[in-house]
């Protein structure tokens, strides 16, 4: 008896230690029952921003609110540097947390893969720098990601906005180089899971002049990708489609960046024999920063956003989904980026969230001073 009494503190200590160990290894929130999205628009999506969201309950709350808004898809960024911190050493803990909570809320995840670890690039280069010597390492990571998430993540995006010098490691952009990166990543992904959907492009809409130092026009870049033989190595084109100060019905034009520029991207695909390939709009939207020249008023932003979702459903059968940037930041950026969000850092919904939610649930949307919304 005395021996037993003496061992009680030790047992309690052991239990506490096990409890603490468990906390470190798995999310400290209950997943709860499987949820399902209710929406009138199955293309409705949003880009979440959870790369540096460390608290599991906030990851869960994010996806709960995305579901409650009426979005069926999310696009999320998965950092190669975080998930392969050393060559062939993988850490999927945060990615598992994100993917499993998204799926628990009934959401389809599109995984954007990038951000180069230090071991895969020369010293003092940008995390977006990857030269040809690192292409195979990236492709191996893509294969490992697809293998690990087989059955959970079906769509991946290869790189992001490679037509911007900044996103290409502050080097001159290189469509042929990107085409080669895409080819290797595609082959590695298909080897891991033949059913995975590989999305290429994700180009930034820009009117950069020919030979510009900082960027290449997205229409020219896409054509150059095809010229370099990229066509067979993507199952769908990821497109970014921002509206800036224009309403979503402004006609497309090669010399304008507006929401319908995606139609010009689609024309390039058709000209290159890819009429049957779908388009995934993985970034879109408007900004309502009070002092940014590319922003609109909050009411306009809400009306345009709802109209854009409705247009993708009604007029663009070749568009699979449309994700607006960005649902929430873990903390304020202190820049115009904060005015793309749908909820604030403490999950307080902005009126645009409520407007999209009303639309997604088939209710009329009341936004003053704007053209009628669906």
């Amino acid at each position: 008896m005395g021996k037993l009494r003496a061992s009680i503190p030790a047992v309690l200590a052991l239990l506490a230690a096990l409890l603490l160990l468990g906390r470190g290894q798995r999310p400290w929130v209950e997943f709860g029952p499987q949820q399902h999205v209710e929406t009138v628009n199955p293309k409705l999506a949003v880009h979440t921003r959870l790369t540096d969201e460390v608290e599991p309950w906030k990851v869960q709350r994010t996806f709960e609110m995305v579901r409650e808004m009426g979005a069926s898809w999310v696009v999320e960024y998965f950092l190669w540097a975080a998930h392969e911190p050393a060559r062939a050493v993988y850490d999927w803990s945060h990615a598992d947390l994100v993917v499993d909570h998204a799926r628990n809320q009934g959401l389809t995840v599109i995984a954007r893969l990038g951000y180069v670890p230090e071991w895969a690039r020369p010293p003092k280069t940008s995390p977006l720098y990857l030269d040809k010597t690192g292409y195979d390492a990236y492709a191996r990571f893509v294969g490992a990601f697809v293998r690990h998430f087989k059955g959970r993540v079906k769509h991946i995006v290869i790189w992001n906005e490679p037509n911007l010098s900044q996103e290409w490691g502050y080097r001159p952009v290189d469509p042929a180089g990107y085409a080669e990166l895409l080819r290797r990543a595609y082959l590695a992904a298909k080897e891991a899971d033949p059913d995975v959907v590989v999305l290429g492009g994700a180009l930034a809409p820009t009117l950069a002049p020919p030979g510009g130092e900082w960027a290449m026009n997205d229409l020219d870049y896409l054509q150059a990708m095809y010229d370099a033989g990229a066509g067979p190595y993507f199952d769908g084109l990821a497109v970014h489609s921002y509206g800036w100060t224009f309403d979503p019905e402004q006609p497309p034009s090669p010399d304008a960046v507006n929401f319908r520029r995606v139609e010009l991207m689609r024309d390039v695909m058709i000209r290159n024999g890819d009429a049957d390939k779908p388009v995934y709009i993985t970034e879109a939207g408007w900004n309502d920063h009070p002092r940014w020249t590319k922003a609109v008023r909050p009411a306009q932003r809400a009306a345009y956003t709802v109209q854009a979702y409705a247009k993708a459903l009604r007029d663009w059968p070749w568009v699979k989904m449309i994700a607006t940037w960005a649902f929430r930041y873990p903390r304020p950026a202190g820049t115009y980026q904060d005015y793309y969000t749908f909820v604030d850092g403490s999950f307080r919904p902005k009126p645009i969230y409520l407007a999209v939610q009303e639309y997604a649930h088939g209710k009329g949307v009341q936004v003053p001073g704007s053209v009628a919304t669906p």
Partner: protein
Amino acid sequence: MVLAALAAGYLLWGKRDVTSARIRESGVWRVGMDPSFPPFESIDPATGRPVGLDVDLVNAIAARWGVRAEIVGVGFDELVDAVAARRVDSAVSALPVFDWRTQEVGFSAPYIEAGIVLAVPRGSSIRSPDDLTGRRVAAEWGSEGDAQVRELQRRLDGNLELVLRESPDAAMGAIARGEADAVVTDAVSLALFNKNGGDLGAAGAPLRSDPYVVVVPAGSPLLLAELNRALEALEVDGTMAALRERWLGPGAGGTGQ
């Protein structure tokens, strides 16, 4: 004299305030500004030069210090980074306090209060949010004012009618049209509305404070102290009041300090 104070401070602080030392040695204060936000800063189309309240403020401070102000155009989103990287000595551009950047930059005392206020017509019996029960309160849809009114509505158990409009001016105009009893908007929009013929007054303290400040590199105690002394002196001698009246209208934008 202020230049002498800067020099004395330099001797005291030594190399702990390289920005102050640089200003003292060069006689030039490099100030980052994004001239796209009138009436604080914009480009005068006639001269191509920046004009506005912040421009006048920078020149008034530089004059007190006996140095020349050099305004450097920097995009709004890069202003704090530009200060942190010491590409400029300070930023004066209707900037709020970014409290999560305090390891990289410092912030002066406020020189404008641009926060969210409850505004009412002259002679209104509404003196604070406590008087809004059963009232119609306007705000710009989707703005911070909108969020504040929705919060007030919750506090009053729904006993407050929201009147949402497409812009700050339309929200304030709702009072003149008899569609609202009060409006919640930012202090700068209120000031400009009144400057253009409106006649609304703030009722009570700001619902959310949002002061504009000067941003300096972290580790610039001497520069920060001199800035705060200059701002205080400009407040005391009436210069700040005159600048606010010129650009925002009578009685607008005071920090209450």
